């Protein structure tokens, strides 16, 4: 019979021959019962404490990871830059395609002055250029898809920021290695070539 059951705990009480329960037997039984209950409570308390400690570690780790992630910095710095760069790529692509189309249309007008036998093969080549220009729509749409994805990431990061407003600020980031100083400037943000030429004109090479 198990000592954990009521029968088990009552065992010492049945040791009296005359059927009476002695004070000593009762004392021993109660003390055993109390000891077992204390052991059980201590065991449960240790288990709960371990679970709570584990939960606290997970929460602390999640907060640390979120702090490292720095959602606001990711949004303001990296996502905004990525969006701007992709916008610029799409714009440059469109501008380049229109330049090519301008040149093709000018050539078409010139070809009209040629006699038919010579014009045909040249027009066929021009058609190939027009066909090649239709590629421009594909990367444009791909870029739009990437921008949509970035906007979704931005939305999720804003949600994280709202959920963890109380997070302490991330320490300033160490200087990052850069493959370029600033990379190509976005339209309207860089220095125009004319200004660069003028600047170089004002600072002539003294060795000349």
């Amino acid at each position: 019979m198990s000592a954990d059951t009521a029968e088990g705990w009552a065992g010492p009480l049945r040791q009296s021959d005359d059927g009476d329960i002695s004070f000593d037997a009762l004392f021993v039984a109660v003390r055993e019962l109390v000891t077992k209950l204390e052991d059980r409570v201590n065991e449960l308390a240790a288990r709960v404490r371990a679970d709570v400690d584990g939960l606290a570690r997970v929460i602390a780790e999640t907060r640390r990871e979120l702090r490292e992630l720095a959602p606001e910095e990711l949004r303001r710095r990296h996502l905004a830059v990525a969006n701007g760069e992709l916008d610029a790529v799409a714009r440059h692509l469109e501008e380049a395609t229109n330049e090519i189309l301008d040149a093709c249309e000018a050539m078409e007008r010139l070809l009209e002055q040629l006699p038919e036998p010579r014009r045909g093969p040249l027009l066929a080549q021009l058609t190939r250029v027009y066909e090649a220009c239709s590629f421009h729509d594909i990367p444009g749409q791909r870029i739009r898809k990437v921008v949509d994805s970035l906007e979704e990431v931005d939305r999720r990061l804003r949600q994280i920021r709202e959920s963890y407003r109380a997070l302490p600020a991330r320490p300033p980031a160490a200087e990052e290695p850069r493959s370029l100083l600033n990379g190509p400037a976005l339209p309207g943000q860089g220095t125009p070539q004319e200004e660069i030429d003028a600047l170089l004109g004002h600072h002539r090479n003294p060795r000349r």
Partner: protein
Amino acid sequence: MAVDRNIPILIVDDYRTMLRIIRSLLRQLDFTNVDEATDGATALRKLREKPYGLVISDWNMQPMTGLELLKAVRADPQLRDIPFIMVTAESRKENVLAAKEAGVDNYIVKPFNAETLRAKIEAVLR
């Protein structure tokens, strides 16, 4: 049967550059009576103002998509018989089937060449 090269064609795309490319390719194919619209709503208005013999439309446009334009054209008793070609990067089978169900006459996947454009136009105009 020869195809009438002077048939009025409406091309619809929200990318002006793409409109320009399609117009240039049509010119190479001797289709010179070409008008354009940069969205579905404008296209629908133009179609109701003047008779066109063919619509060549992109799918991905806002606020009215090419598919919505196609459905509006097919639902309009005055416009329902106009041949309609979808020119799009959407090449998934379900897209093609949706266009077919809506009554598209032909479907060109971008990027495309002049020969494909000629073949599809002649197929719907013959």
